[in-house]
C-alpha cells in the first residue's frame, strides 16, 4: 500500500496531494536554507504561529458574509495577513526597542497563537462552527483535500522556488557579509523582506499539509541536515531542497495510506530521519567519518612522534605509541627500533627538518598551509624545491654534529 502511494499509484487525487507535498518540501528546504544562512531560523516559528488568528478570522468573516468558511484560498489570505503582522511586530520590537530578536519572537509567537486559540473556541460556539475542521491547520492533514487545494499548494511552491532562483545572489551575499552587501549596493531591508516574504509564502501554503506548529521543522531541518554534506552554499541549498522534497513525498504517501495519522508530524519525522542519517553518515562532516578520521589521525601522529623519538635516540614512554610501533613492525617491545624502524625514523626526521624550513619561508606559504604533522613534504613540493630546502638544512646539521 505504502509502496503504491510512493509510486503515485493510489489514484489521481492522492497523487496530486503527494506531488504538492513534495514541491512544498522542496520549496521549504530551499527557502529555509537562506533563513538558516542568515541565522534567523526561529523567526519562521513566529511567522507560522501568527497565521492561526488569520485563519480563524478569515473563517468568521467568510461565514458572516455568507460564503463557505472553509474556502482554502480565503483562509490562506487571512493567515498571510496576520503572519505579516506578526513578522512586522518581531522586526519592530527587535529594531526599535532594547529587546533582542529571540525575546521578540517568544512574545509574538505566544500572543498570536493564544489569540488564535481563543478565536477557534469562539468558532466552536458559532452555529456553523462545529464542522469547520480548522484544527487540522494545527498539525496538517491531507484527508479531504480538494483538487484545487493541491494545485494551489503546488503552484505556490513552484513560485517560491522561482523567486529563490532570481534572488539567490543578494540573499546569499547579505547572509554571508551584510556590510559588504550593503556597500555593493544591495538593499538589505528589501532583501530581508523578500526572504521573509518567501518564508511566509511557504508557511502559508504549507498550513494545510504540514500544519502551523510543525512547518518550522520543514524550514529548518533540511538545511541543517544538508550542511553536513557540503561546504558550498549552492550545494547546501540544492541538497536541502532534495531532502525536504523526500520528506514531503514520503510523508504524504504514508498519510495517504493511513489517513488517521496527522500528516505534519509524519513529514517531520521523515525529515528527522534524513537529518539523523546525514549527521551520522555524511562524508567529511558526519559524526562517523569524523570519528574515524580522528582515530586514524591520532594513530598516525603517535607513530610519527614515535619515529622522531627513535631517530633522536629518546625513550618512548607513551604505551599507545609503543604498541602502535610494535604492531607496525617498527620497534620491539622494549622500545628498540627494528631495521625497518631505523630506516623510517631517519626518513621522518629529515622530513620534519625540511618542513621546518618550508614553514619558516613565506615563499612556501601554500605548502606550509598543508602542514599537519603527517603529510610527507614530497607530496607537496617538487623535487627541485626540496633540493633547495636541503641545501639550507645541510649546513647547520653538520655544525650540530
Amino acid at each position, binding site marked *: 500500500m505504502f509502496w503504491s502511494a510512493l509510486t503515485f499509484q493510489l489514484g489521481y487525487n492522492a497523487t496530486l496531494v503527494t506531488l504538492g507535498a513534495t514541491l512544498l518540501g522542496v520549496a521549504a528546504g530551499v527557502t529555509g536554507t537562506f533563513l538558516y544562512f542568515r541565522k534567523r531560523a526561529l523567526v519562521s516559528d513566529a511567522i507560522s504561529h501568527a497565521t492561526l488568528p488569520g485563519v480563524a478570522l478569515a473563517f468568521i468573516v467568510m461565514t458572516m458574509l455568507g460564503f463557505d468558511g472553509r474556502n482554502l484560498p480565503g483562509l490562506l489570505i487571512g493567515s498571510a495577513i496576520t503572519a505579516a503582522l506578526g513578522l512586522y511586530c518581531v522586526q519592530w520590537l527587535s529594531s526599535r526597542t532594547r529587546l533582542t530578536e529571540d525575546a521578540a519572537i517568544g512574545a509574538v509567537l505566544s500572543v498570536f497563537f493564544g489569540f488564535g486559540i481563543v478565536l477557534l473556541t469562539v468558532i466552536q460556539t458559532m452555529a456553523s462552527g462545529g464542522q469547520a475542521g480548522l484544527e487540522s491547520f494545527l498539525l496538517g492533514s491531507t484527508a479531504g483535500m480538494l483538487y484545487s487545494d493541491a494545485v494551489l499548494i503546488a503552484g505556490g511552491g513552484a513560485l517560491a522556488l522561482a523567486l529563490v532562483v532570481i534572488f539567490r545572489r543578494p540573499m546569499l551575499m547579505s547572509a*554571508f557579509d551584510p556590510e559588504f552587501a550593503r556597500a555593493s549596493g544591495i538593499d538589505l531591508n528589501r532583501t530581508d523582506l523578500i526572504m521573509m516574504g518567501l518564508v511566509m509564502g511557504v508557511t502559508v501554503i504549507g498550513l494545510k499539509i504540514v500544519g502551523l506548529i510543525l512547518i518550522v521543522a520543514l524550514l529548518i531541518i533540511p538545511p541543517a541536515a544538508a550542511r553536513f554534506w557540503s561546504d558550498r552554499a549552492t550545494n547546501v541549498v540544492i541538497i536541502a531542497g532534495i531532502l525536504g522534497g523526500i520528506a514531503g513525498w514520503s510523508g504524504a504517501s504514508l498519510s495517504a495510506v493511513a489517513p488517521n495519522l496527522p500528516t505534519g508530524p509524519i513529514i517531520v519525522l521523515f525529515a528527522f530521519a534524513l537529518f539523523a542519517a546525514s549527521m551520522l553518515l555524511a562524508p567529511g562532516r558526519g559524526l562517523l567519518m569524523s570519528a574515524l578520521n580522528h582515530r586514524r589521525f591520532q594513530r598516525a601522529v603517535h607513530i610519527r612522534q614515535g619515529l622522531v623519538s627513535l631517530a633522536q635516540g629518546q625513550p618512548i614512554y607513551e604505551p599507545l605509541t609503543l604498541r602502535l610501533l610494535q604492531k607496525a613492525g617498527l620497534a620491539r617491545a622494549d622500545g628498540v627500533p627494528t631495521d625497518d624502524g631505523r630506516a623510517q625514523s631517519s626518513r621522518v626526521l629529515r622530513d620534519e627538518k625540511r618542513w621546518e624550513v618550508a614553514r619558516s619561508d613565506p615563499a612556501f606559504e*601554500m605548502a606550509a598551509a598543508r602542514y599537519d604533522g603527517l603529510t610527507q613534504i614530497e607530496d607537496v613540493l617538487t623535487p627541485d624545491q626540496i633540493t633547495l630546502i636541503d641545501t639550507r638544512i645541510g649546513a647547520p646539521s653538520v655544525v650540530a654534529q
Partner: protein
Amino acid sequence: MTSDIALAGPDAANAEAEVLRKSPFAIRGLTVSYDQKPAVFSVDATIRPGQMTAIVGPNGAGKSTLLKAALGIVKPLSGQITSLGRPLAQEMHRIAYVPQRASVDWDFPVRVIDVVQMGLYREIGLLKRLSGGQKSKAMACLARVGMEDFAKRQIGQLSGGQQQRVFLARALAQDADLYLLDEPFAGVDAATEKAIIEVLKSLRAEGRTVVAVHHDLSTVPEYFDDVLLLNVRKIAEGPVAEVFTDAALEAAYGGRLASARITTNAATG
C-alpha cells in the same frame, strides 16, 4: 560651514563646489550617534584623489563608524557624503569596501573563489551566469594577493592573514576607483601586511584612491600619503608630513600620547 559660505558670497560657494568636484571622497558635517552618544561629530574631510589616506585615532574615536556611515551601513544623523561632486549613494558602483575580518562568520559554507566572485555580482546582475572571462578575472584578483592556490579551500580553513587577503581580492574584483578598507592590517601576519600594502600601492599607481582605517601609528608615515586624525571630532587632516605631528597626536590621543609617541619615534628614529 554652509553658513560661512553664504556669508562669504558666491565665490566661496563656487570654490567649495570645485573642491567637492575634485575629491573622490568628501565628507561634510557628518554626525553619527549610538543611543544619543555621538560616535562621530560634525566631521568634514576632503580626500585627495590618487593618494593613500589613513584614518587614525584612539579606540572608540569613530574611525570605522565614519566609513560605515559614509557607505550607508549605519544611518548618520546628518551629513553629506560626495564623490566627485555627486552624492556617494549614486556612485556606489565605483567604490569597493573591505570590511573588518571579524564582521563575518568564517564557518559559512563558501570557498575562497566563491567569496572573490561576490565582488563580480554587481556587474553580473541577478540571473546571468559567470562568463569564462569573469571566472579568470576572479582568479587573477586572487593571484594578485598571492592566494590563487587556495581558490578551492573552504574559507574557515584559512589563517587570519589569508582571510584578509581574500577580502582584498574580492574588492579588487569590483574594479573600483575608490577603495575603503576597515582595519586591513588588524591581526595579520607580517607577510600578509607586506602583501596588502604592495597591492594598495599598486592601486595608487593605477590612479585609484585608497582610504584605510589604521591603528598602528608607527607605520603611518611609511605606508600613507595623507592622514585624517579623528577622535569623535576631526583633529587634523592633510599630508602626513604636515599633519602627523606630536601636537596633533596629543590632541587626538590625550593622556594616551606617551605610548603613541614612543612607537612613532621608534619608527622614524
